[in-house]
């Protein structure tokens, strides 16, 4: 390749190189086929992934059918497996993460895109995108040793403030659905910020100018014109963050408490789909137990696929049509 690159810089290729080039010239077909093979392997790998998940969960699917999704008993000793406690735990922690993450993330994105001076905005965005690169096991480590103690000391305040709701009742040990949700919120905020910032920056300048010319203040322009214009993209970023938080494993596993029962209170320990797979997969004895765990994997796969698809449609549609 280094020899043939002489053609680009303009020197005349020598005889040997010319021969090489002539052979390459006929190689368009070959190159096409080789790269096509690369592209096809992506399809094959994905298809294989789905087939493997489907086949290896067969034992469990035949044994429980659709009731697997609606059963709340998880008893490996008696051979009874139901996914409901894990689906519940996954949904509750993700919902909590969104509840905290959306205002924080969208607020920061508005600040970075509309209000901050470009240089500060770039520096802060750089910093926040680094946050997205932190491995999830590190979040788990910080969750166990920092967040859980903090939540324990914050418990009396939370209880006196919100204790009248069923969500903040019962004993609190630190590891809980609440801790899982808070860790997840820190992890998804960078995603919401960086995508929302991009879509807000993509709003045409004349939209802002028109609003300002009509006498709107800076904030009114941002909140009533720019944000509604970008709302589909922002929604998309939220769905992407949701898909991530549903599939997030390590950080949640380390702080959620690992209790396969359904509790209404956020103070109670719970369990998520990803966490139960991570904890019990290597100790699953028997085909049924393992099949049930793989079926949980299949459920998680299906769930994240649907959410991702919705997110993609939303993000893609922002650029095309002018809303608002």
């Amino acid at each position, binding site marked *: 390749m280094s020899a043939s690159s002489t053609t680009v810089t303009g020197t005349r290729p020598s005889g040997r190189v010319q021969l090489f080039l002539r052979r390459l010239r006929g190689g368009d077909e070959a190159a096409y086929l080789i790269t096509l093979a690369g592209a096809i392997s992506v399809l094959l*790998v994905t298809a294989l992934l789905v087939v493997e998940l489907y086949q290896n969960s067969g034992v469990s699917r035949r044994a429980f059918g659709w009731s697997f999704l609606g059963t709340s008993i998880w008893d490996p000793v008696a051979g009874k497996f139901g996914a409901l406690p894990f689906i519940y735990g996954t949904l509750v922690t993700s919902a909590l993460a969104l509840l905290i993450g959306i205002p924080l993330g969208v607020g920061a994105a508005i600040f970075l895109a509309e209000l901050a001076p470009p240089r500060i905005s770039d520096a802060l965005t750089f910093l926040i995108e680094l946050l997205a690169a932190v*491995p999830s096991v590190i979040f788990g480590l910080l969750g166990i040793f920092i967040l859980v103690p903090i939540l324990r000391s914050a418990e009396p305040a939370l209880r006196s403030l919100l204790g009248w709701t069923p969500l903040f009742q019962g004993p609190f040990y630190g590891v809980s659905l609440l801790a899982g949700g808070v860790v997840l919120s820190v992890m998804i905020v960078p995603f919401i910020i960086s995508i929302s910032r991009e879509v807000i920056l993509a709003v045409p300048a004349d939209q802002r100018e028109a609003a300002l010319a009509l006498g709107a203040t800076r904030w009114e322009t941002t909140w009533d014109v720019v944000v509604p214009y970008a709302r589909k993209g922002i929604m998309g970023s939220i769905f992407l963050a949701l898909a991530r938080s549903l599939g997030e494993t390590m950080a949640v596993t380390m702080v959620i408490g690992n209790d396969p029962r359904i509790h209404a209170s956020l103070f109670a320990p719970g369990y998520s789909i990803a966490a139960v797979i991570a904890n019990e997969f290597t100790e699953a004895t028997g085909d049924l137990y393992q099949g049930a765990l793989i079926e949980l994997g299949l459920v998680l796969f299906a769930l994240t696929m649907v959410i991702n698809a919705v997110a993609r449609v939303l993000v893609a549609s922002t650029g095309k049509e002018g809303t608002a």
Partner: protein
Amino acid sequence: MLSLTGLCTFVAAGALVFILGYLFVHGASSLNWDFFTKLPKPVGESGGGMANAIVGSAKLLLLAALVGVPIGFLGGVYLAEFGGSAFSSIVRYTTDLLNGVPSIVMGIFAYTLIVLPQKHFSTLAGGLALGVMMIPIAIRSSEEFLRAVPLSLREGAMALGASKTTAILTVVIPAAKHGILTGIMLNLARVAGETAPLLFTSFGNRYWSPGWEQPTSALPVMIFTYAIAPYDDWHQQAWSAGFVLLTLVLAVNVVARLMLSSRGPAAR
């Protein structure tokens, strides 16, 4: 309201500073040379290091690169240079699909593919899990950087009589080389921190793992095991390991991003 959005930004950026600061204080303080050179000590004995986990992570990343980079790179070249048909949009969609698969599900995939037939955990299975995770990002970044090469370069090469293949090999790929390599580095940094796909593929090992057929320990898995163990000494080592892992990952990210941004918007 304006200051409120500023506060949001401050909280998000502050989280990173806090994480870095805390890990630095806690992890670096107990970091010593033994950490990089010694094997883990048996339970009850203090001291020891994670030399085997560092080597294990390196081996896993090598395997992952061998799986993920060729497929991703070739797929990226296809999409950027030969794409445009309905088939390419199917490939793009599938890439996004694969990118969205939760890491723990990738672990199950490698488990059913390698561990189940072989009936034992292996470095190979862990490497495969990480490698499959690399594919979608490798495709996307290769395609993006190849597309960023100006059309005029291609046309120039072809006007000089180069075939399409020659133009791609000698002009387009060299022009996009830096971007593609940076993308691979970022991709490796991302999977280097993955724990979930390794839990039941490469499993873990308290000793050296010779060859590719045996279970091996890896840095992120060690952090997990040590953090949930009930020994203070192990917690301390988990902090050290966390510090080392995070420093590596963030260093690669910072260098890669600075390189990309210094090459101007075209290379982005």
